C-alpha cells in the first residue's frame, strides 16, 4: 500500500467527512438546544440540492449562477425551517419526545413527495462551477479543486461556529439554553426566539450543504433518507450538541468508510453502524459530548 494511495483515501475520506459535517452540524445544534432529533434534516438537505439545481436553471449556468443558486437554496430552506418551527413545532414543545420525533418524520414523508412532485423522479445533476472545476496535483494524486474547497469550508465553519458559540452574546445565550432552558426563561431571555433562531440556522446549514453537494453527487429522490442515518451516526459518535464533536465524528466516519473499502470491503457498510452502536453502549454522549 503506497503512500500516495493512503493519501488519496485520506483525502477522499476528508471530503466525505466535511460534507457530512456541514449537514450534521445543524442536526447537532438543534439537538443540543432543543433536545429533538430532527429526521427532516435530511429532507432540508435534499430540498437544498433541488433548489440549487432550480436556481442554476433560473440564474443561467454561469460561474456566478451556481453560487447565487446555493445561497438562494440555503435561504429558502432556512425560511422553510422558520415556517415549520413557528407554525408546527411550537405546539409540540412540552409534549412527549415521541410526538416531536414523529412530527419530523411526517415532514420527511411530505417533503419527499413534494420534491418528487416538483422535480420528478429522475436524477438531476449540476456542473461544477468553472472557477473550481480543475484539479491540483498533490503528493502524486489529482485532487479536485471543488473538493479542496469543501475540505476548507468544513473547518472554517467549525471554527466560526465555535467562535460564535463561545465568544459572542448570542453564543452565550445558546449555550445557556443548552444547559438549562427553564432558568434562562426565568431570567427573562426569549427562549422561543432562540429556538426559532437555532432551527432556522440549522435548516440554513442543511440547505447549504445540499446545494454545495450537487456538483459532486447526483440529486435523486431518496437522498434524504440515505443521508439522515449517516448524519445520525456522525452526531452520535461525536456527541450531540457539540460542534467539535460533530466535526471529529464526521472525520472518523469519513475515514472509517474510506479505509474500510480498502481493508475490509464487505464490512464497510456494517462497520459504521457497529461503530455507532459501540459508542452508544460505551459512551452514549459521544466522544466530545456531555452527559445529558
Amino acid at each position, binding site marked *: 500500500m503506497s503512500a500516495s*494511495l493512503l493519501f488519496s483515501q485520506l483525502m*477522499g475520506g476528508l471530503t*466525505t467527512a466535511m460534507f457530512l459535517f456541514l449537514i450534521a452540524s445543524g442536526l447537532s445544534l438543534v439537538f443540543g438546544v432543543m433536545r429533538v432529533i430532527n429526521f427532516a434534516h435530511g429532507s432540508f438537505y435534499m430540498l437544498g440540492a433541488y433548489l440549487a439545481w432550480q436556481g442554476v436553471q433560473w440564474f443561467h449556468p454561469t460561474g456566478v449562477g451556481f453560487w447565487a443558486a446555493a445561497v438562494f437554496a440555503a435561504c429558502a430552506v432556512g425560511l422553510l425551517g422558520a415556517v415549520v418551527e413557528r407554525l408546527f413545532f411550537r405546539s409540540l414543545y412540552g409534549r412527549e419526545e415521541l410526538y416531536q420525533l414523529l412530527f419530523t418524520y411526517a415532514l420527511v414523508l411530505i417533503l419527499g413527495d413534494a420534491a418528487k412532485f416538483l422535480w420528478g423522479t429522475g436524477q438531476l*445533476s449540476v456542473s461544477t462551477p468553472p472557477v473550481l472545476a480543475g*484539479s491540483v496535483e498533490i503528493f502524486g494524486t489529482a485532487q*479536485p479543486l471543488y473538493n479542496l474547497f469543501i475540505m476548507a469550508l468544513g473547518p472554517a465553519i467549525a471554527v466560526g461556529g465555535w467562535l460564535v458559540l463561545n465568544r459572542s452574546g448570542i453564543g452565550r445565550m445558546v449555550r445557556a439554553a443548552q444547559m438549562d432552558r427553564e432558568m434562562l426563561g426565568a431570567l427573562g431571555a426569549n427562549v422561543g426566539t432562540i429556538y426559532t433562531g437555532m432551527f432556522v440556522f440549522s435548516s440554513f446549514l442543511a440547505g447549504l450543504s445540499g446545494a454545495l453537494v450537487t456538483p*459532486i453527487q447526483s440529486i435523486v429522490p*431518496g437522498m434524504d433518507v440515505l443521508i439522515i442515518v449517516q448524519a445520525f451516526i456522525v452526531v452520535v459518535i461525536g456527541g450531540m450538541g457539540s460542534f467539535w464533536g460533530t466535526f471529529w465524528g464526521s472525520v472518523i466516519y469519513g475515514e472509517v468508510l474510506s479505509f474500510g473499502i*480498502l481493508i475490509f470491503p464487505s464490512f464497510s*457498510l456494517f462497520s459504521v453502524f457497529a461503530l455507532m452502536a459501540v459508542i452508544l453502549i460505551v459512551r452514549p454522549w459521544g466522544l466530545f459530548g456531555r452527559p445529558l
Partner: protein
Amino acid sequence: MHLRHSLALVCAAAALAPLSARAADIKIGFPIPLSGPTAVYGKPVLAGAEMAVAEINAQGGVLGRKLQLLSRDSKANADEAVRLARELIIKDSVDFLAGTLTSAEAPAVSTVAKENKIVFIAPTSKSTILTDPQHIHPYIFRVSSNTDVEGLAGATLMARWKDVKTVATIAPDYAYGRDSIAAFIAALKKLRPDIQIVDSQWPKLGEPDFTAFITAQMSKKPDAVYCSLFAGDFVTFSKEATPRGYFKAINNRLIDGAEIGTTDEAQALGADYPYGVIGDSYDPVIWGGGNEPPEHKKFIEDLKKFTKAEYASGWSIVGYQTIYALAEGIKKAGDTKSDDVSKALIGMTFDTPVGKRTFSVKSHETFAPEYWGVMVKDPKYPFAIMKDPELLPTSFPSN
C-alpha cells in the same frame, strides 16, 4: 306472431352481438423502476413497451382483444417488484407479466411467475441466474442479452489492445455486477491469458459517493478498466472520476457493457460524458457506418413521434421487443392461457427492428448481441455518439 317473435329475437341478438364480441383486454403487468438512479433506463423501456401496445392495438389487438399495460414503479427493489407483481396478479388479475430492469428484481419476480404459472418476459435483466438450470421454469423468458454474451464481447474488445497488460474492474455489488465481471474475466483468460486482473471494486447499487473506490482503483495503476456501472451510477461515477484524472490515467481505455452507449445515458451525462470510452447498446439509434436496417429507421421515426422527444432512446427497443414477442406468442398459442403461450414461446423466432431473435429451447433467452463502439463527440448532437457501432459477439458461448 311467430314471425314477429323471431324478428324480435334476431334484432335482440344483433343488438347484443357487438356487446358480447367486445372481449376483455389482455392485461400485462409491468413493474419497472420509474424513480431513482435506474429510472433513466427504466422509463424508456416502458415507453417502448407502450409504443408497441399502441401499435398492436391500432391494428386490432391480439386475437381480437386489445392489450392493456399496467405499469408500476418498482424502484429497482427486489421486494417492491415482488410485492407489485403479486398485487398485479391477485388484485388486477393480469394475464401476463413483463418488465423489471435489474437482475435483483427479475429473478425475484420470476419466482412469483413460477408459483402463479404466469408467463413473465424480462426485457433487460442479464444475469445468468435468471435462466440457469436451477432457476429455469416454463414461464420465464428474456429478450435481453446475458452476462456471458456481454463478457465475451467485452473481453474481445479488451483483447484487441495488445499493449494492455493489467486490467481493473469496477461493478455494482449485486448479481448482475458479479456475473458480468466473472464472465468477462473468464472470457479474457481464454483470449489473453497474459493479462492480469489487478483490482476489483464493488460499490453498492445506487452508491452516492464513488470517491473511495476511484482512488483505491487508481492506486493500482491499471492499463485498462472493465466497468459494469450503469444508469445513474455511471453518471455519478464519471463526474467524480474525471476531475481525479481517472480516465486520463488509463487513456480512456474503459469498456462498459452495461449499455452506457445508449442515447439515454449520453444525454444524462451531457457534456460531462467521458468521451473515448467504449460502451454498448441494444440500439445505437444514431447509426454511423451505413448498414442500418430499414425497419430500424422507421422504428426510430415512430419512437420519436410517440415519445415526443427530439432524440430517440436506445432502450425503448427492448420494451418494444418484449411486447411484440409476447403478442406473437399469444397469436401462435391461439389463447391467453400461460401454459399454451409458454409452449408457443419456447423456440419461437420473432422479428425486431434490428433483426430476428429466437427464444432458445433450453434457457428461454435470445442471447441478443449488442452494438459496441467508442463514444465520441459529434458536432451534430449535444451528446456523445457511438462511432462505427459493431455487432458483437459474432459467436456465442455454448449454452
